[in-house]
């Protein structure tokens, strides 16, 4: 059996983390290749439903990353996002959706090595947690059950 390779979706801000991830590459820092990056104009623009949709479509883990506090290109998008994450995280925790599978981080355009670090550690965490079968079971309900 081949080793489990986590599928991870990263929702990142265009102004910081996206550039930071670019820097990771141009600096030739090696890091795990499990992440698919989706670029957003701001973390404030990342709808919580997108995170759920990722799990629904088979993601094992999620990274959400944006500008450090006070560095938002739009002044306060990341502050609003942070409040939303706090509430969303609490709700997910209550519902038993494993919050360890979602890593939030602040990565600036200059932090290429931090991005590599975030990705590597998230991949390790998810590797330990294993594939997200509980959610997959719920999401794949229609395909499994011939007809309920």
């Amino acid at each position, binding site marked *: 059996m081949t080793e489990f390779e986590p599928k991870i979706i990263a929702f990142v801000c265009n102004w910081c983390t996206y550039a930071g991830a670019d820097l990771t590459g141009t600096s030739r820092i090696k890091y795990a290749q499990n992440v698919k990056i989706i670029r957003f104009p701001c973390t404030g623009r990342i709808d919580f*439903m997108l995170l759920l949709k990722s799990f629904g479509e088979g993601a094992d883990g999620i990274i959400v990353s944006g500008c450090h506090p006070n560095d938002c290109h739009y002044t306060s998008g990341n502050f609003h996002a*942070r*409040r939303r994450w706090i509430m969303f995280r609490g709700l997910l925790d*209550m*519902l038993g959706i494993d919050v360890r599978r979602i890593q939030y981080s602040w990565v600036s355009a200059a932090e290429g090595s931090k991005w590599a670090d975030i990705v590597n550690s998230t991949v390790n965490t998810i590797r330990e947690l294993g594939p997200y079968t*509980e*959610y997959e079971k719920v999401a794949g309900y229609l395909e499994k059950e011939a007809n*309920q």
Partner: protein
Amino acid sequence: MSELVKKAAALLESKLVQVVIGYGKGTGNRTRAIFATQVAECENLIFDSRCVQNLAVYLTKLEIKKLGKPAIVAPVPVLRSILQLAVENQIAESDLVILGITPESELIDFESFASIETFLSTHKIEIEEKYTKTIDAIKAMPVAERFAYWVKELEPCFKCYACRGACPLCYCTRCTVDDNQPQWISVASHPLGNLEWHIMRAMHLAGRCTDCEACYNACPMGIPIHLLTKSMLQDVADNFGSYGPSLDKQNTLSSFKPDDKESFIR
């Protein structure tokens, strides 16, 4: 409650309002919302412990707005909703007359939304112990077990959206679940569709919910969806101090502090 009847009749008589939204006798031992537009109909107004439906839901309904300016019978849960609607600029002071009712079943007048806030400051939302215990017990479950618990609890949901219909704060003219470009939430009521709907509903009430339990009371299948909003109220308190509507404060998710806690962010 003859005083209530008198007051309501006087309001209609003087044409200060065109309709009185209150409680009347329902089927068997139930009570129901009634809409008195004639003085004589005020005789049907009652108030007692069975009157639990949150009437504030009617303040934003198109069909009721058409009747004209309302007076509304408002026990504490309704007052909380009215204040939250005011915070969200859905109603103005001049839009309605409030026939407040204290927990001791006494009539109380409110001159302004601010006076409602003052009154409510001595009637704060408190999550009953039986609920905090249940929430704690759920949160103490191992994560996979907790997930299984909720999937099972939400299983009977057939998406009649009574929870949405009964909630005074679900006043959007077109709910996000009724939009399909994009289709955020599956129309189907299978486990994923149900889970996503209840997460969406709870999130849209995050920091807004006034804990009236109208959603739970409305659910024909008895699903404890109020546990989700109650748990979120606790989260609001734990992270941002207090909960409950306040005219001086923006909604939790419409505002922020630069030093909001962020222990989980790297």
